[in-house]
């Protein structure tokens, strides 16, 4: 591997052959594996694979990769609660700015006579609610944000 490519890839300047490392950023762990083969470099971040041909690595590409990989700040603080299935919001138990506990009931989503109690999976505060009672929602529609 040329020095230039090496520097472009690894700002922390380590020799790549087959390297595994764990990075912990604000409580979230990232499993990173770097492998070199056939003049190419493979980077796996949490099982997502990216393969680079060393010769093609330019500064622009490096910046692009870095941007797409660094989780945005909000990911650590906020969480979107999405609709697990298409249906109708039949009950809402919480209000904006209300603190909520893990496993607390947030709302009920009715779908095909099936009642789904949506609960919070962590402690936080309701930042925003995007739905109203009796509103139809699609699968994966964002219902509310907890931070």
């Amino acid at each position: 591997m040329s020095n230039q490519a090496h520097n472009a890839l690894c700002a922390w300047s380590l020799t790549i052959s087959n390297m595994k490392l764990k990075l912990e950023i604000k409580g979230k762990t990232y499993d990173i594996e770097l492998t070199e083969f056939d003049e190419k470099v493979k980077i796996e971040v949490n099982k997502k694979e990216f393969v680079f041909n060393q010769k093609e690595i330019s500064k622009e590409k490096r910046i692009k990769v870095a941007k797409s990989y660094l989780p945005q700040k909000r990911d650590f603080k906020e969480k979107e609660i999405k609709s697990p299935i298409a249906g109708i919001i039949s009950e809402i138990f919480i209000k904006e700015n209300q603190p909520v506990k893990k496993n607390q009931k947030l709302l009920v989503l009715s779908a095909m006579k099936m009642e789904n109690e949506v609960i919070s999976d962590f402690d936080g505060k309701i930042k925003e609610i995007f739905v109203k009672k009796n509103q139809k929602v699609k699968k994966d529609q964002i219902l509310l944000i907890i931070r």
Partner: protein
Amino acid sequence: MKVLHFKTVPSTNAIAKKYKKAPWTVILADEQVSGYGKGKRFWYSPKGGLYFSIVLPKTKIEDLQILTISSAFIVAKVLKENFSFSPLIKLPNDVLINQRKVCGVLVENVVSKDVKSSVIGIGLNTNIKSFPDNLKNKATSLEIELKRKVPNKKILNQIVNNIRNQL
């Protein structure tokens, strides 16, 4: 089949939700004092009827949606095979005989990122002699239709076994 038999409960679904770690447990009650259907609508549940809930194993939400409908079909099939009725399924979750409701099915899930727990509750009007005036034109029972008692346990076993084969 593990059946927990209660004399009186608020609702069998409410009890079943507490047994999420023991899938296929059946909660059976002689009567429900706060039996409900969709939208927490009251389900008349006096002694004599068959009221039970099944704790379901972890399943994808899409499969549970199909289960509501298939359970109504299963109840209709059991009634047809045992008593030669021609029940009508009011999609997706009610079974009617002679245009009157004889059975209701209610699946309730707790979800966050994935399904945390699921129960299916079935209320079947088996040995109910008569209904209050406000329900007389909407509800019926097997006893009213057949003019005889029916074996609740046998019907329960058939329905639960058929549902088990669905998942």
